[in-house]
């Protein structure tokens, strides 16, 4: 075989496989992986943006309620002590008058 025959063989026209066009089209329409990851990240960020403030608000409300409850118990304890001291004073006063 001559060099010319080899060249002709190498450059001869070969038809594309029948599903070639479909495969190319399928590849081009498929979303790239990085894009999908970005969409997921964005969705996660949006979900967190919605959840975190609500959780923080709930936590703060809970803390405020606990603090208020402690204050209420302190207030009632002081009231109790005061009422008992008043009772003692009244008793002392009554005795001294008798």
């Amino acid at each position, binding site marked *: 075989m001559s060099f010319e025959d080899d060249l002709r063989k190498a450059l001869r026209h070969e038809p594309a496989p029948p599903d070639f066009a479909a495969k190319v089209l399928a590849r081009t329409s498929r979303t790239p992986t990085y894009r999908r990851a970005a969409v997921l990240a964005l969705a996660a960020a949006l979900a967190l943006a919605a959840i975190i403030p609500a959780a923080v608000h709930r936590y703060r409300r809970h803390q405020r*309620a606990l603090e208020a409850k402690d204050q209420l118990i302190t207030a*009632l304890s002081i*009231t*109790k002590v005061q*009422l*008992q*001291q008043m*009772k003692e*004073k*009244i008793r002392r006063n009554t005795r001294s008058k008798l």
Partner: protein
Amino acid sequence: MKKAFLFLAIALAAFAQQTFDFKTLDKLGAKAKESTNITLEGDTLKLAVNFLEADNASLKPVVDNLKGVYVRSYEFDKEGQYADADLEPLRAYINTLQWTKIVDVKEDKETSEIYVKPLPNNRLGGLAIIDAEPKEVNVIYITGDLSTSDLAKLGGNFGIPDMKFLHDDKKAGKKSTPAR
């Protein structure tokens, strides 16, 4: 026209009754070594009541219908660290409310007062305690619906003297100062 003025006067009086700035009492504690300032009202008070746990459950009926709880408690290192005059605006305010003074004890340099707002059916619309000692001042002001038994519960076995005064007044047909 007269009616309008009367209405305005009543409205102003009602407004004046509802407002006492408890922050004005904070100056009492300027030189205190220990101080407790508590102001609970509105949503904060409701939150506190709702958060009372099982171990405080017995308090719940006592505090369920309260509207406001104000406590100012100060302890001082030495005498003369506060001016009794700073308590006068509160006394004057309570006088405008026409609450009944059920305890008024004066011993040496100490003054102890209890005021209540009597309501029908052994109920109280409020309680105020002013206790001024040389090295200690306590002011307690509670508004809302309280039963006399709640008050007795709150003060341990106290409550009998003052509540008795109220009941004796009623039995004897005496008119106590009308509560608003």
